[in-house]
C-alpha cells in the first residue's frame, strides 16, 4: 500500500512539472463534464419531471453515478491507458519489480484531472439533496455514501477488466469507453424509464442500477418494480465486479507471462 502511495505521489510530482498542460487538462475535463451536466439540466428545465421522478431526485441519481465514476477513473487511470503500456513493452519492467503488478499499474497514474467530473457530480448531488421533498438524514446519507463507495469498486472492477483485456488484444479497447461513459450517461436517469435490452444490460449485466436507481427508489419512498432486497445490493455488485476484475487481471498477467508480447 505504501508503495502505491509513493508511486502515485511520484506521478503527481511529475505532472506538476508541466503545470500549464495539467491546468489545461483539468479545464478540459471540467468543461466536458459541465457539458454532460448541462444536457441533463437543459432537458430538466425543458421537460420538468420525468414521470414520478423529480428533477432533484434525478440530480441525486446523476451525482452518485458521476462521483463513483470520477473517483474510480482517477484511481484507475493507469488501466485506462494500459494498452499503451503493453504496446511499448513497458509491462516487462513491471514484472521485473518485486511488488504486485496491479499496485504498480494503478500507482503509475493518479489522474487528478478527472476531478472536473467529480466537481459536477458533487454539485449535482448536493443540489439534488437540498431540493428533495423526502427526509434526508444520517441514515440516508450513509446509504448514499455506501452506494458511492460501491460504485467506485464496481467501476474499478470494470477498469480492471478493460485493462486486463489488453493482455489478449490491444485493438479496439476504446469500445469499453463507450460502455462505461454510455452507462454513466444512461444511469443518470432512473433505469425504469428505458425500454428494452439496454436497460436490462445496466440492471443485470453491468448492474449500475444497483448503485443509484434501486436504492434511491426506496430512499425516496417509491414502490419498486423489483423485490425490496435489490435496493441493498450495491455493495454486492461493487464487490462482485471488483472480484471479477481481479480475476480477469490475474488471468491476463498469466497469459502475458506464458505467451509473451
Amino acid at each position: 500500500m505504501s508503495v502505491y502511495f509513493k508511486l502515485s505521489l511520484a506521478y503527481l510530482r511529475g505532472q506538476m512539472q508541466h503545470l500549464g498542460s495539467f491546468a489545461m487538462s483539468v479545464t478540459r475535463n471540467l468543461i466536458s463534464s459541465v457539458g454532460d451536466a448541462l444536457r441533463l439540466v437543459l432537458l430538466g428545465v425543458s421537460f420538468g419531471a420525468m414521470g414520478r421522478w423529480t428533477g432533484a431526485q434525478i440530480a441525486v441519481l446523476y451525482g452518485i453515478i458521476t462521483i463513483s465514476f470520477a473517483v474510480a477513473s482517477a484511481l484507475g487511470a493507469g488501466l485506462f491507458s494500459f494498452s499503451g503500456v503493453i504496446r511499448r513493452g513497458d509491462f516487462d519492467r513491471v514484472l521485473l519489480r518485486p511488488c504486485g503488478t496491479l499496485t504498480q499499474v494503478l500507482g503509475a497514474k493518479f489522474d487528478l484531472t478527472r476531478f472536473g467530473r467529480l466537481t459536477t457530480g458533487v454539485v449535482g448531488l448536493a443540489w439534488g439533496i437540498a431540493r428533495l421533498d423526502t427526509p434526508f438524514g444520517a441514515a440516508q446519507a450513509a446509504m448514499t455514501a455506501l452506494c458511492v463507495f460501491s460504485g467506485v469498486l464496481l467501476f474499478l472492477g470494470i477498469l480492471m477488466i478493460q485493462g486486463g483485456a489488453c493482455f489478449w488484444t490491444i485493438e479496439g479497447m476504446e469500445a469499453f469507453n463507450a460502455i462505461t461513459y454510455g452507462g454513466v450517461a444512461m444511469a443518470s436517469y432512473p433505469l425504469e424509464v428505458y425500454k428494452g435490452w439496454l436497460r436490462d444490460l445496466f440492471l443485470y449485466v453491468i448492474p449500475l442500477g444497483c448503485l443509484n436507481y434501486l436504492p434511491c427508489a426506496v430512499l425516496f419512498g417509491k414502490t419498486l418494480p423489483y423485490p425490496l432486497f435489490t435496493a441493498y445490493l450495491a455493495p454486492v455488485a461493487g464487490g462482485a465486479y471488483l472480484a471479477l476484475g481481479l480475476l480477469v487481471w490475474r488471468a491476463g498477467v498469466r497469459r502475458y507471462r506464458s505467451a509473451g508480447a
Partner: protein
Amino acid sequence: MSTFRALLKTALRQQLQYRSAMLVGILTQLVFAFIYIMVYMAYYTYSPGAAQGMTLSQAVSYTWINQACLRMMSLSGLVEIQEMMRDGRIAFELARPADLHGMWLSRALAVRLAPFALHAPLTIAIGLLMPGEMRLSFALEVLPAGLLSLGMATLLSAAVTVLMTASCFWTIDSNGINRLLPMVAKVCSGNLLPLAFYPAGVRAVLRALPFAAIADAPMRILVGACTAREAAATLAMQGVWLAALLALGRVVTGCGVRRCMVQGG
C-alpha cells in the same frame, strides 16, 4: 479540383489505416444515439406536452443525423499544419507557389469529409432500419434544402478549421483556442443537445451564431422542425456566415503569412 481529389484520397486512406479505431468510433456513435434517443423517449412518454419546438420523431431523427455527422460538425485545427508551424517546417509550405488559403481550405474539407463518408452511411442506415419510434425519418421534400444546408455546414466547418489553424501564426502554443473552442462549439452548436431544448432566449442568440450554422441548422431543416420561411432564413444566415468566415480566413491567413515572413519563420 484534382488537388482536392488527391487530398481527399489521402484523408480517406488515413482514416482506413486505423480500421479498428473507426469501427469503435461508429460503435460509440451508435451506443450514444441509442442512449440519447431512449432518454428523449422517456421524457416524451412521462412528461408529454412539456416539450416545445420539436416532436419526439424529430428529436430522434436529429440524434441519428447528429451522431452520423459528428466528426464533420465538430471543430479542430489541421494538426499536421499546426505541427509544421511549431517546428518551422511551415517555411516549405509557404514557399510553394500555391494559394495558401485555398490549399488549406481544400485540405480542411477533405479532413472533414473523409470520416463523414466512412462513418455516416452505416449510422444512417441503422437509423433508417430501426423499428417504431426509434426510426430516423424525414420528408423527401425537405431533402434539397436540407442537403444544401448540410453542404454549407461542411464548408463552414472547413472555414473555421482554417481559422483555427491560422491562429497558430500568432500564438505558437495556441492550446487555448484549439482545445477550448471545440468544447464551446459543442455546447453552442446543437451537438450537445438540439437547440430546441434550450430556453427560448438563449436559443435565439445561439441560432444566430456560426456554431449553430454548422450543426443545428442543417439538422433542423432535415428533420422538418421549421417552416419553409424559417428554413429559407436559416439558409440565408448560413450563406452570410460562410461568406464572412471565408473572407476572414483569407485575410487572417494572409496576415499570418506576412507576419511569418517578417519574422523569418
